[in-house]
Each structure stands twice: as structure tokens, then as C-alpha cells.
């Protein structure tokens, strides 16, 4: 289309106030635009969730129709299943190791990148790359090989294969997650660049050294971003599956040391064919993640600083 083809009324349009359409019609249009997402959300998320909630009150082995058992799955989980509690402890340990390590590494690298004059783009991409690769099964398998008997780590450090030592296997899994610090790093980097330079200048004039500037300017100004990353990574860490699955060759071993919550859930559902029990586990996990997130939000009031509130 060339400009000459524009009909005269279109050219006039900006001048005249646009005719408002009735509200209902506008809403209809919104629904039409939303429909792909809404359909997806209903069919792929809400319906399966509803089914899973129903299944959590049944005994369902995938092959035969589900049998209603009331709260039995939940009772069994909390009172009769020592392996369930082991998986809870393992998951908490994992969250406590992986999340702080990953955030610390992401922050350190972001700080280093921020001060760079040249090659920033290259290094940013390079550090982000593991996050793109990391979710893949192949990397997790390579990870297993690296930390196995006779693998790279064994050869360099002479520690033996970490993946076969109960005390070390979870660390190998956590390191795989930590290594994928690209996403929080990019967010930190964006946050750092938002901090006004004059704050640092003012701090320098007041005689603050680098460390003091970091503690008194960077950390408070960055706290909303830090909080965002913390919440996001914690939620993800609770749901860790692929690294634990691949590094332990699908068994959660050795001696259940990498049997994280979702691994045990998978084991109950797909290995032992107790889909009802697995569904109940999934709902408990959802609740726990919800509670942990709520707690994080509550505590955030005491340490997260929003610049817009500073004036009040």
C-alpha cells in the first residue's frame, strides 16, 4: 500500500475523537484475542489440575479405573512413608545449597560485567549460555560423566566419583543448577544499571570505599531485584527434577541421596504406578511452595527497599 491509497477518512481520524464502541463488544474482542491462551490454560493446565486433585483422593494404577480412598494417600504420606520424609529433607537441603550459591554467583558475575568497558556483550552471552544448554538432558548426562568414577573431577581431584557417594551426589546436582546462573545474572545486570550513578558519586564524596558503596548503595537499591530472583529461583529449586534424574541415572541414588521431592513423585507415579499417591504429593508440594513464597513476601517488608517509597 502506498500513502496515496489511504482513504480520506483514515487521514482525518486522529483529529476527530474516535467513536467508542459498546463495552460488551470490546470485551468480546478481548476474549477473541485471548482465546489461544485461554484455551491452552484450560485444556493444558486447569483441567489436568482438576483431574490431579480428584486423583489425589483415589487409588489409581494407570490401568484400572481410579478407586476413591478419601484421605488415605495423604495419611500414608505423612505417617507411614519414611522415604517421603527423606525426600522432603533432601529437597530442603538442595534448596538451601543451590539457591544462595546460584544467586551469589549471578550477582558476582553481574557486578564484574557491569564494570567492564569492552567485550561486555560477549561475556554476557558466554555466561548466559549454560542456562540455554542446562535444561537439556545431554548436559545433565555429561555432568554425570564428569562427576563419575574415572571422570574429570575424579582425575583432577582424586576424589572418586561424586555421583556414587551419598554425601556428594546432591552437591553435584546442585552445582549443575548453580552453573545455570544466566537468568538471574541478566536480571541483576539490568537492576545494577538502573542504580543512578550520582548515588555512588555522593557516597564517594562522603568517603565511602568500594565495599561500603556496595553495602550501602548497591544492596539496598538492588534489593527488589534480589527479592524477585530469590522468589523465582526458590520456586524453581523446589521443583528440581531433570538434573537429579539424569545425574542419578533415574534412580535418585546413591542411597536415596538425590531422591528429591519430584523424583520421588515420579517414582511413585510412573515406576510404582501409584498415580493417586503421586497426585497427592504434587498438591502438597504446591501448597508448600505457596506457603514458602508467602513467607518470603512477608519477610521482604523488612529488607526490600523500593526507591519510590524512599520519599515517604
Amino acid at each position, binding site marked *: 500500500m502506498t500513502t496515496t491509497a489511504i482513504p480520506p477518512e483514515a487521514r482525518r481520524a486522529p483529529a476527530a475523537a474516535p467513536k467508542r464502541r459498546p463495552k460488551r463488544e470490546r470485551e468480546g474482542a478481548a476474549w477473541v484475542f485471548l482465546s489461544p491462551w485461554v484455551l*491452552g490454560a484450560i485444556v493444558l493446565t486447569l483441567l489436568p489440575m482438576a483431574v490431579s486433585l480428584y486423583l489425589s483422593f483415589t487409588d489409581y494404577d*494407570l490401568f484400572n479405573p481410579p478407586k476413591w480412598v478419601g484421605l488415605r494417600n495423604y495419611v500414608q504420606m505423612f505417617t507411614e512413608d519414611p522415604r517421603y520424609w527423606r525426600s522432603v529433607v533432601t529437597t530442603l537441603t538442595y534448596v538451601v545449597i543451590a539457591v544462595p550459591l546460584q544467586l551469589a554467583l549471578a550477582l558476582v558475575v553481574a557486578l564484574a560485567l557491569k564494570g567492564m568497558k569492552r567485550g561486555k556483550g560477549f561475556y554476557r552471552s558466554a555466561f548466559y549460555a549454560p542456562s540455554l544448554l542446562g535444561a537439556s538432558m545431554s548436559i545433565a548426562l555429561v555432568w554425570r560423566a564428569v562427576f563419575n568414577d574415572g571422570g574429570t573431577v575424579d582425575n583432577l581431584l582424586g576424589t572418586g566419583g561424586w555421583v556414587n557417594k551419598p554425601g556428594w551426589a546432591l552437591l553435584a546436582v546442585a552445582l549443575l543448577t548453580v552453573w545455570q546462573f544466566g537468568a538471574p545474572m541478566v536480571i541483576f545486570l539490568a537492576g545494577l544499571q538502573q542504580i543512578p550513578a550520582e548515588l555512588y558519586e555522593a557516597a564517594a564524596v562522603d568517603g565511602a570505599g568500594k565495599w561500603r558503596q556496595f553495602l550501602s548503595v548497591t544492596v539496598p537499591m538492588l534489593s527488589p531485584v534480589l527479592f524477585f530472583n530469590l522468589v523465582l529461583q526458590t520456586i524453581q529449586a523446589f521443583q528440581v527434577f531433570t538434573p537429579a534424574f539424569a545425574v542419578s541415572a533415574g534412580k535418585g541414588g546413591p542411597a536415596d541421596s538425590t531422591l528429591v521431592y519430584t523424583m520421588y513423585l515420579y517414582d511413585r507415579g510412573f515406576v510404582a504406578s501409584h498415580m493417586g499417591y503421586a497426585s497427592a504429593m504434587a498438591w502438597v508440594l504446591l501448597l508448600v511452595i505457596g506457603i514458602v513464597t508467602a513467607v518470603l513476601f512477608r519477610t521482604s517488608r523488612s529488607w526490600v527497599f523500593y526507591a519510590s517509597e524512599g520519599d515517604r
Partner: protein
Amino acid sequence: MPGHRTKGFCASAAALALCAVLAGCGGSGESAGGGKVVLRYTWWGNPDRAERTEQAVALFEKQHPNVDVSTSFSGYDAYKQKLATQAAGGDAPDVMQLDYRQIDQYASGGVLLDLAKQKSVLRTSEIDRGLLATGRVDDVQYAIPQGRGTETVAYDVQAWKKSGVPLPGKSWTWSRWADTMRALAKKTGKPGATDPGQSEDAFEVWLRGRGKALYTKDGRLGFTARDLTRWWTFTDTLRREGAVSPAEQTTQLDGSVENTPLGRGTSVTDANWDAPASGFVALVPTGVALAPMPSGEDGTPGQYFKPSMFVGVSANTGHPKEAAQLVDFMINDREAAKILGASRGIPVNETIRAEIGPRLKDFDKTIADYQASLEGKLKDPPQAPPSGDNALQSTFQRDYDQVSYARMSPREAAENYVTEAKAELRS
């Protein structure tokens, strides 16, 4: 005109979203490659079995030009998980290999086709009736055993001979076996055997040697925590002495011969099923031989001939006739039998067994001779295990991990297992 384009766009976007949803609902077995019938055929096993199966399948395709067979295989543990997921989703392969443990669950879950319906193309007249009956559930023939297997102690002949320890004879008791493993470890500097504590199969042999069984006739647990404590104390002691493999190696077992200590060259023997033991030939080039499993202290044999590696057809297959033809070919075809040898055990078709048997060579002959040496000495096999056993097999291995990593005493772990097993069998 902008308005029209938007509406058109919306409609097509909505249609696209719908298509994506519907695409997920296509049934299985409707796939056709260039007008050909496509059958999916899966099994577990070692690379040797895979190679021979592929050859046999190629021959089948030659004889049936309208059929295209797409095959896949993996180790037993991975196979078990994948098949369960596929079957649950109604997407089981057209032709699948099944274990004795899976038949009950899969048949009662409606995954398997009644093979009697394909009688015209699938002959079973030359299979021993008793053996054939092991593939029945509620009097319906859901699967056909492809062979007969028994457990064995496979050993590295050269390493054993070099050690100067006398070679195993026609039978030995568990205590003789333990002494021999200790002697081997001392002489060769590496463990004599894979730690048998992790294996439910080995435990069953030990249990049967004491006149007990894994399961009672009505599908309950046939042993007590005390029995299991005794077994795990026995193996735990051997592990501490270095006579059997350390925890770091035992935990890596996944049902493939490659990940056994013998396969990695870190032990002298491995207890395994006889047909998969052929996989050791490639891994231990200096030669592998087979000895019987240890028996009870009074000589009661614990091992038995187990109908092994059943083959079944999916109830959802789009091509029941072609699938049955493939099963028939794998079991009854003379040329196929020549290619397959004893890679799934000694052939079940009696005519073929009589004809092929004497001509078996290499490791196939080793297996045939080994089975012949046990003929008439073993007790009847137990009935098919209850469906919960499928999951318990891995639970057993896991609970023993706690023992071999010294995180639990044999008694604690045994009590845990019995609790878990009772819950599993109840549900």
C-alpha cells in the same frame, strides 16, 4: 482492510490453537509410511540381542513387503519405565517384550490383546502346554514366552584360572560360594562377585534354597523381616570383607551387563540371567563361562527355569494381524530361529529346538549346555509374581543401598522393606 484482516487473523489463530489440541488426540497404530503398515516393536536387552533381532526383523520385512517394522530397545530398567508410561497413555507399542512380572498388571489393565483371536496367523501348537500357560491370565492367552531362562554365576575364565582357586563344580552351597569369593578377592585383588544383596532375584534363589518363597500363593509376602535381615547381614559382611563389590559400584547397576562390575572388569563373577550373560562375551574378550547359582546348605536348589521374555501385542494396535504375524515369525520361523539362536533363551518351539539345538554355537551353545546340566535337578517355578512386585524390585535395590552405604543396619533396612512391601501388595 484492517478490520477484516483482524477478524481473519483471530479466526485462524483460534483454529490453529484447536488443531494443536486435536493433534494430541490421534490414535496409535494409524501411522502408515508410504502406504505400508508400520508396526512398532520394542524389547529390552543387550546389543548382541539387538543386532540379531534387527537381522530377524529385516528378514520378516523381506517376507512381508507391505509391513515396515520400527524397532527400539534399551536396558531393562529404562524399558520398564518407558513401557509403563506408554501403556498408561494407551500408546503401547504394537509388539512388545514383557517380563513375567509385568504380565499380570498389563493383562488385567487391558493393555494386551487376546492372542487367541489371531490363531489363524499365530501358531502355538509346537510350544509346551505348561510353558505356554505361563502367558495366560484368567484363562486368556495374553502373551507367549519366547524362551526359558535361569540364573547363573557368569565368570571371567582367565582371571579365575590365573588366581589358582579351583573352578566351580556342578553345584555349591551359599557358604562354599562365599568362601570361594573371599579366596578370589584375596588372590586377584578385586572383589569376587557383584554384591548380590541388591538383587531381589538372588534373594529369591537364597530364599528358595531354604524352602521359602518371595510370595505366597495368594500373592502376599512369603518371608519375614528376619529372613531378609539374615540375607542382608550375610551380603553386608562379604562386602565389608571386600569379597563382593563395594557400594559405589553396586549402586550403578541398572539391568545392563555394561554396568556390572564384571562388565567393567572390576570383579571376577556376576550373578545374572543366562541369556543376557551373552553380553559379557563382548566385554570380557578372554572368555566367560557359566556356573550354577549356589544352593541351600542342605543342597536344596534355589534357582529355577523361569519362562522369560514374553511377547505380547497391544490391545490398541491398528494392525492385529500383522502384529500377530511378527510374533509368529519370531517364535516359529526356522530362519528367524537360526539368526536369533539363544539370544532370548533356548527356543520354545519344540520342533525348532530339536533342529536348532545341536547346531547352536559359541555362547548359545554355552547357554544350552548350562541349561542341560540343570535339567531335572530344579524345583518348579513359582507362579507369576503379584503386580506390586514390579515396583518392589527397585525398592529392594534402594533399601539395600542404605545397607551397603552403611546408613542403616541390615535389620532396619529389612524392616523398612517389609513394611513397604506389605503396603505395596495391599494396594
